């Protein structure tokens, strides 16, 4: 699904990302961990063609992302609040994304009904614009919006941050369910090692822009990661 080839990103002489090779097969649930400044968000931004690579490229479904826009229909993401439209109500926002992805209101409503638990009655019908919701609730709306339109690739940057414990547990279930679907590739980054080890089949550790670990998740993974980051 994703093929990274000689990818690097420099700001001036400061190299923030340098990945020679990385392959993420279709259907995998992929976790990216690393400290602040490790290059997680940079990698996702490159994947979404929001910044230009210094060298190399990323292929999404055989499409080089900075050359063609054809990856857009099957890719969705929630990186930060700049993916939300503040002056819309959550419903309007969902319908807007739905329309962009070729889904009508009924389709979107059907999808949203599956997330009633996750929303916990705080998103729909609140008579509030997105900009007036709390950070956590904004995040919920953004994450669910990225599920609209049956995307094949879902990219979530720090989805667990700012969420309350109940919502974190529900989000883990949702991501696990997505991971079971062999047509959907999920990319998740997080600072919380236990969350990623729980939901991801494979975990890659970035440190100062380079891949330092590439682990198939197992019983020992959490231990291994904790040792790495403690060191």
């Amino acid at each position: 699904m994703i093929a990274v080839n000689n990818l690097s990103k420099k700001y001036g002489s400061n190299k923030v990302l340098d990945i020679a090779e990385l392959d993420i097969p279709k259907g995998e649930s992929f976790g990216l961990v690393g400290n602040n400044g490790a290059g997680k968000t940079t990698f996702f931004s490159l994947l979404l063609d929001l910044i230009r690579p210094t060298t190399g490229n990323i292929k999404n479904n055989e499409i080089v992302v900075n050359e063609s826009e054809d990856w857009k229909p099957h890719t969705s993401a929630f990186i930060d609040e700049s993916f939300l439209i503040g002056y819309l109500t959550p419903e309007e926002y969902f319908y807007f994304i739905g329309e962009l992805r070729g889904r009508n209101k009924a389709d979107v409503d059907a999808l949203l009904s599956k997330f009633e638990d996750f929303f916990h009655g705080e998103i729909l019908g609140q008579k509030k614009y997105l900009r007036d919701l709390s950070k956590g609730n904004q995040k919920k709306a953004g994450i669910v919006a990225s599920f609209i339109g049956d995307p094949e690739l879902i990219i979530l940057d720090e989805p667990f941050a700012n969420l309350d414990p109940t919502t974190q547990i529900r989000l883990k279930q949702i991501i696990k369910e997505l991971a079971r679907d062999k047509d959907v590739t999920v990319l998740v980054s997080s600072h919380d090692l236990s969350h990623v080890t729980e939901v991801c089949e494979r975990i890659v550790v970035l440190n100062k822009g380079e891949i330092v670990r590439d682990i198939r998740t197992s019983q020992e993974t959490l231990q291994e990661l904790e040792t790495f980051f403690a060191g």
Partner: protein
Amino acid sequence: MLKHFISLQWKSFFRSASFQTNVALKILMAFGALYFILVFVALGAGSYYLIEDSLKVKPFDLINRFLIYWVVFDLVIRYFMQKMPVVNIKPLLYLPFKKGNIVNFTLGKTVLSFFNIIHAFFFLPFSVVLVIEGFPVLNVVSWHLAIFALIYANNFINILVNNRDVLFYSIVGILVILGGLQYYGYFDVTDYTAPFFNLMYEQPVFAVLPWVFLIALYFISFNYFKKHLYLDAGLSTKQSEAKTEDLDWLNRFGNLAVFLKNDIKLIKRNKRSRTTVIMSVLFLFYGLLFFTDSIEAYDAPVWKVFAGIFVSGGFLFTFGQFVPSWDSAYYPLMMSQNIRYKEYLDSKWYLIIMATIASTIISSFYIYFGWEAYVAILVGAIYNIGVNSYLVLWGGAYIKTPIDLTTNKKAFGDSQAFNVKTLILTLPKLGLPLVVYAIGHYTINSTAGFILVALTGVLGFAFKNIVFNKIESIYKQEKYKTIAAYKQKN
């Protein structure tokens, strides 16, 4: 304590993003400020003699008559442009400052605002002239101080009524009605207000009144803010109740409807964009300056086309100029969603076209000034639709200023929006139609001039696809720079 506040203020000023623009801009802004100061000083010094010579009335009486409009208009300007002082005090709340100090400082800060100082540049020279002309010093000083107090009273009134639209628009409404009544000679409010201002001069004791008013206002503001110095009260931004809207009637525009619906919500629900639309309505009346022959310099025939472009193109210039910055807050979403640039641009284009047509229809009242006036507007509209609509979208690709939709800050001209590329693009927007008209007008006649300008517009319209492809590729080229620029909040 004051030392801390002042050093914070100092840093926030010199480290602000807008201050760190390039030197050329700073010089330009300094010249701009200087220009206004000079104009005010010149008016202050010269208006006495000007009024005496040209209008043959007593200048001081006339000024006193119209002072009420000055004061109210000042309030209007402030409402739109003066920034509220309350935003930056959040981080100070939990620190060991007395609340009274914080409030005093933030209110005190507004005293130094440009909107207060600028008046001094008019009234100081004017008062000096009065003294030179033999008006008694004591009386002039009392009059001067009274006005000074009223201007500052405006400062605090503005703080108190901040964001209360109903109040504000009723003030504007009353002003317009009074002005209208006076113009047509039905009722002259200045008959009642002029004696008040005269009193300030004739009986210096009464100049105390505005000062009492000012001090009272200060204490009211002080108490109000002290009482409301909580994050969920005076300092919070108001949340209006949101209503989900369908706007299904726009679905007839097919794919474009998605964006059109969004743009209409954008305009309706954000303060900054609403202000823009109000401004574009004001453009409708700009033509009055030209077609009523009130300003001699505008009597040359080419200016009619100039007026036509502005009257029909208010929305085009005020809104269109800032595409795609309107979407700056969520530009990364737009860039990673399933969106074709062409559709995105097309929807903005349709919005501009619809607004231009609406302005043209509304401005049909110019027929009152003769058919030629309206023909100029029609021709201007055709040129706007056929040529300028592309040019604003094109120019927008280079304006990489993020727009904060929720405040009016910088709604009137943005320093960063002003760069060489956009400047060059204004030439064909305004200059070209004038040149084209002039060619027709001076070689054949005015009708030929109008026809030539209209033809240019139609010609531009015919090349829509080619031009759009070009603009699309420019947007793509600028994409990364634009995303990066929008990330930088001021």
